[in-house]
């Protein structure tokens, strides 16, 4: 059992570090982990779940706003992008946030193609992050089920 726990812990550590190194997560995700304890053991998963629901809602808004045959209301698109930028920033979803910065610029420039491209990218990006985090949470679960504790991962 101990060998299994050690192996899982190492996998978890490597995987977590890779998510930071590849720019999926940033410092703010680390901050969220600090807020998790025995009293609130699922805090990070809960916040991220809210975030992903938010993504669905906001991306839906953006798609609808960009789908207007006739004049697109870029301020409406921009408002949803601003909200997504905010929530991605709050959870440490670094790539999503970065895309929102670019997206916001295209909105301000009223660049239709740019906006549509960003919309597609941000949709892919949040789904990718969701899958990656699911894998990470699964590793945590496996460690606990094998009788181990989830290690603190030092990113630096």
């Amino acid at each position, binding site marked *: 059992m101990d060998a299994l726990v050690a192996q899982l812990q190492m996998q978890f550590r490597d995987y977590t570090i890779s998510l930071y190194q590849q720019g999926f997560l940033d410092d703010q995700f680390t901050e*969220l982990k600090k*807020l998790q304890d025995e009293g609130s053991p699922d805090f990070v998963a809960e916040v991220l779940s*809210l975030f992903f629901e938010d993504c669905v809602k906001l991306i839906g808004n953006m798609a609808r706003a960009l789908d207007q045959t006739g004049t697109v209301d870029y301020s409406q698109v921009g408002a949803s992008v601003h909200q997504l930028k*905010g929530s991605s920033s*709050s959870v440490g979803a670094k790539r999503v946030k970065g895309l929102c910065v670019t997206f916001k610029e295209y909105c301000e420039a009223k660049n239709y193609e740019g906006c549509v491209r960003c919309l597609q990218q941000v949709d892919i990006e949040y789904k990718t992050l969701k899958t990656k985090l699911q894998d990470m949470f699964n590793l945590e679960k496996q460690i606990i089920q094998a009788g181990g504790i989830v290690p603190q991962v030092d990113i630096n």
Partner: protein
Amino acid sequence: MAVGEVMRMEIPAGGDLTVTSPELHVLAVDDSIVDRKVIERLLRISACKVTTVESGTRALQYLGLDGDKGASHLKDLKVNLIVTDYSMPGLTGYDLLKKLKESSAFREIPVVIMSSENILPRIEQCLKEGAEDFLLKPVKLADVKRIKQLIMRNEAEECKTLSHSNKRKLAQDIDTTSPSSSSSSHDDSSLKDFPSSKRIKSESENLSSLL
């Protein structure tokens, strides 16, 4: 330390003597459900009671400032600090701040503004309107700890003026007190001067109301 002891003595018209617990009750206002969840946790972990609402309008309703006369519950739910997002649809955080400062019942409650944008004129405008401090999002634990210390210290200083009534000594204490340094990674060097000057201003206002 004075703060751990009685902070406020409230004697409602009914005659009951209520001693408020030293735990701060914070009203957090943010239109983002993600940010509400995060700020709530940050505050709870910092030993605060928290109520979250999704808009400035809801905040005013909660406080009983919207004209609704159902304010009898207010004494039990006394709010010690309001933390609000700046950019919200409808009533912005700034609008909310103004309404609070215009109300005689609520102007004394410290208000902290949060924003994802580091716009100096915005920060200055909020501080001028009476905001206690300004937090750059994403908010971190260190930010909340710093705010809590600030609020607790202001409350302690208020207690001191009630017991000493020595204006000159208090002014000297404030001058030599430096704002607690934040371990937040944000560049808040532009804000370092504001909180202490704001405190000096609000302290002399408190004192003149006592005289």
